[in-house]
């Protein structure tokens, strides 16, 4: 479990970093918190010849409330966001998701941007990005792109980032007033990657019926899935236990989750139904539906 030979570059500015990425292409990899990349290199599952370490780039360190969005620079630590009262108030689903990631020592180093760029299918933050309709800002020598979460995640460990691109910022929309959120996952132990997880939002309209519902399920496919057919079906419905039970069954029915030592596809599909129901119920309660 030792790293293969590599060159560790420590650019001081984003421009230098982008030059290195442009120069080395698929030989290079960005390193942020290193919490995913270093273990993968130690197991020799990843072997970049050039590491581009962005931790010294001060311009990537800001966490800002811009009114409609919260912006997280690429080296903002998961733990910093977790401890932020602004995040708790304005992006509650992110605040609720963060403590599920590993343990404190991991979140002290791991970054929000790194988690999205890593795009593990069982990771929490990609699901948060999907359910909040977040955007990521990516830069290369060729210019800047702003990519919707929906278009960013391609598959397990795969995003639409090109080899020469660096994720520079994550923009999470501030929550709608009155919306109730819930983040739920089932893991073998606290801090493990989820067997399955759900991020959900329920906002009520006039007359107490559901105005908008959002459901994102993760750990069940190559990337987090928004279950839009069920979201649409819930819009306008009464927020009843029966409605959530039916929505959960519908959301889970067509999932084709993976099987592994921790559980079969059937078990994960079952957990998806249980967890969607629990998440919708909890989100609705926070939106003001009486329990």
């Amino acid at each position, binding site marked *: *479990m030792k790293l293969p*030979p590599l060159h560790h570059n420590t650019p001081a500015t984003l421009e230098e970093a982008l030059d290195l990425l442009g120069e080395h292409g698929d030989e290079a990899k960005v390193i942020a918190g290193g919490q995913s990349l270093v273990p993968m290199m130690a197991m020799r599952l990843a072997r970049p010849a050039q590491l581009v370490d962005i931790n010294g780039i001060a311009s990537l360190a800001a966490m800002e409330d811009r009114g409609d969005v919260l912006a997280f620079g690429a080296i903002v630590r998961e733990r910093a966001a977790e401890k932020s009262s602004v995040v708790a108030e304005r992006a509650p689903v992110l605040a609720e998701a963060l403590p599920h990631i590993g343990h404190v020592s991991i979140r002290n180093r791991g970054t929000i941007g790194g988690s999205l760029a890593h795009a593990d299918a069982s990771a929490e933050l990609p699901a948060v990005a999907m359910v909040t309709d977040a955007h990521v800002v990516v830069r290369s020598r060729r210019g800047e792109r702003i990519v919707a979460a929906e278009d960013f995640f391609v598959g397990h460990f795969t995003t639409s980032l090109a080899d020469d691109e660096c994720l520079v910022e994550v923009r999470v929309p501030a929550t709608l007033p009155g919306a109730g959120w819930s983040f739920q996952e089932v893991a073998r132990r606290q*801090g493990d*990657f989820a067997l399955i997880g759900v991020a959900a939002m329920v906002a009520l309209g006039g007359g107490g019926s559901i105005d908008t519902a959002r459901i994102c399920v993760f750990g069940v496919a190559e990337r987090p899935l928004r279950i839009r057919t069920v979201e649409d079906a819930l819009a306008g419905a009464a927020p009843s236990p029966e409605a959530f039970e039916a929505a959960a*069954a519908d959301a889970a029915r067509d999932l084709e989750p993976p099987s592994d*030592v921790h559980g079969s596809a059937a*078990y994960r599909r079952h957990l998806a139904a249980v967890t969607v129901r629990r998440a919708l119920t909890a989100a609705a309660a926070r939106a003001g539906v009486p329990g």
Partner: protein
Amino acid sequence: MEAVGARSIGARVMRVEDPRILTGRGQYVDDVTLPGMAHAVFLRSQVPHGRLLSLDVSEARALPGVVAVYTGEDIARLTTAAQAGAVSGMNLSPDMKSPSFHSLATDKVRHVGDPIALVVAESRYIAEDALELIVDDIEMLDPVVTYEDALDPGKPPIFDELEDNVYLTAEMAFGDIDAAFAEADRIVRASIQVHRHQPVPMECRGLIAAWDPSAEHLTIHASTQSPHMLRMVLPDQVGIPIESIRVIARDVGGGFGLKNSVTREDVAIVAAAKDLGRPVKWTEDRLEHLATAGHAREEMADLEAAVSADGVLLGVRMDVKVNIGAYPSDPFPGAMQAYTIIMSFQGPTRLRALAGTSAALFSNKATYVAYRGPWATADFLRERLLDIVADELGIDPLDVRRRNYVVRDEPPLAMLTGRPFAGVTTRESVEQAAGLMGWDAFGERQRAARREGRYLGIGMASYLEAAPGPRVPGQDGPDIMGYETAHLSIEAGGQVVIVTRQQPHGQGHETTLAQVAADELGVRFEDITVRYGDTDITPMAIVGTGGSRAATMANGAVLHASRELRGKVISLAADLLEANPADLELAAGVVSVKGSPVVSLTLAELARVASDEPHRLPAGAASDLAVTRTYDGGRSGWSGGTHCCIVEVDVETGIVSFERYVVVEDCGVPVNPAIVEGQVRGGVAQAMGAVLLEHAAYGEDGQYLAGSFMDYLLPTTTVVPRIEIHHVQTVPTDPDVNFRGVGEGGMIVAPAAIVGAIEDALRPFGVRALEQHLPPARIVELAGTLRPR
């Protein structure tokens, strides 16, 4: 520390080893660096079973920084193949077929992780780079994975020279089994499985071997529970005589039984170091460790019990199978389990007859090793059976236990194996645990919770732990691990040094042995040093620390040695002070005349006279202040107790949480209650892991599926609840030494209590838990709560 004069035994003395270990000053094998040291890495098989057709190491040898690459062929030239158990005599049973094998694969690979080649390089990094340059060609063979595979004559033998995959069969009978079955009102049958899991010490395996070509002497720095064991096992294989081998083990980061063997990697590293004439270090990494260091417990039994109408076990027939993997461990092959599971089955019950057959089977899996309470499956089988009997007969499991467990000093006074039930307090512990837990009131709570859709369950299990336990009358002489020897001496400054053959790896012997000596000798705790872990000074022992024996054996040896040394001190002082020995006392390191403390001599003064001025002593007086004392275990009693827990099962997800966990235990006189409780908690935590999380799983194809800590899950602080520990009033069995072992008790009994509680929680779903491993996916399957698509 306690005030001078207070007794040290029984006090919660802070562990003297903790400041060193907790501030990073411990010295583990990987912390040792020798001049000129090279680093080793093993190439390991990716396939479970195959014939090694070719191995090309030329590119690896050519990589700059690579010192040497050894293949199986090289190792066959440098070492002699061995039969596991040759040193302990455990390769010779008539019903046993012992294969001989080398430390690197020569003809075949026999499990995922089987070492094929050894790379030695200037750094571990380069060694790992070189691994990637080795090309092997392996012809795949049909893998032998399950018990059925191992018994299937159509499967290839794992060792070509043996016709099949049956390592050993055993048959044993005690009491009149036919009479028991003839008398039975009911026959209860169950087939119960324990899954493969593993010890997982914090420090993986590792050693440094350093050959001195001029002195022809080998020094080994090892992470081991038994330093002398390496000296006993290695000579036949590496051609270095025992007197030319010194083994040093400083801090050892856990073992749990795994480090009570000499492994193939040890042999290969020593061979390489001798061949190269320079020190070679191997530090096992976690991936290697999980796949290859050693697994345990893959055992099952078909049980048939003759039961009376009121739930008393009259007789049990059992057929046991043990899946011991490919390479038997050395010097205690896993085949031993074929016997011990039957021999240990009775526990604290009044069972009248027991008949067992068993088979130890080879498979294409990692070596079976001892794990904290190697016979633990026996306790699981018995306690599970009692719960099943309770359920089938509609009797409260607590009452079934009351009817089956012996009452002290009432017949039977001995087990079927002949070991006396001396001083057992099982019944007391059962009542105490049931009372603490509110057993009788629990049913009402359980029903109320179920009405809210919550599923609570309660479970209980009891055990006896032989550590070493009472002897069978008439069977004198040491057990397989031998008697225990301790050496005590007084240094020139008056400090006391204890040299023990124990090899601490988390137990705190530096603290507890000093506590015993402090009281018995009359010196201050802080003036006592415990030395261990260097075979140049420690007494010979095939097993250093294992079998929970230190409490009785090492404390006993230290206690008697201290007493003898105290006698020497007093008699020397009596000579010098011209006093009657009976008028002298020794306290806080000072000998004085009772009632006139001014007439005194310190241990330092006495030590100086003994070493520098022997002419002041009367003729014939012993002039050394040192004692070597061997202890046979005296009249040791049983450790034992009862565990009881309440769990809650989320029947939708299968996740189990603990509401309360209570231990009531008897380990005799606890030398240090804090250390006792640490041992109990650690064992219970590992049992929680075993039931809920840990599975050294193999696929049907023989691939290993639990190769990292993302697949092999250990219990963490978020899983393990507070564990309440209560002590039962103990019954002394020996005039002097009533300290009894606690190392294994937690681990051997807790799985049954936990599984019993889970089964109880799932009773509305008609679940019978016949397996020890109940991960969430399995729980929803058993409960039938998994919804269809």
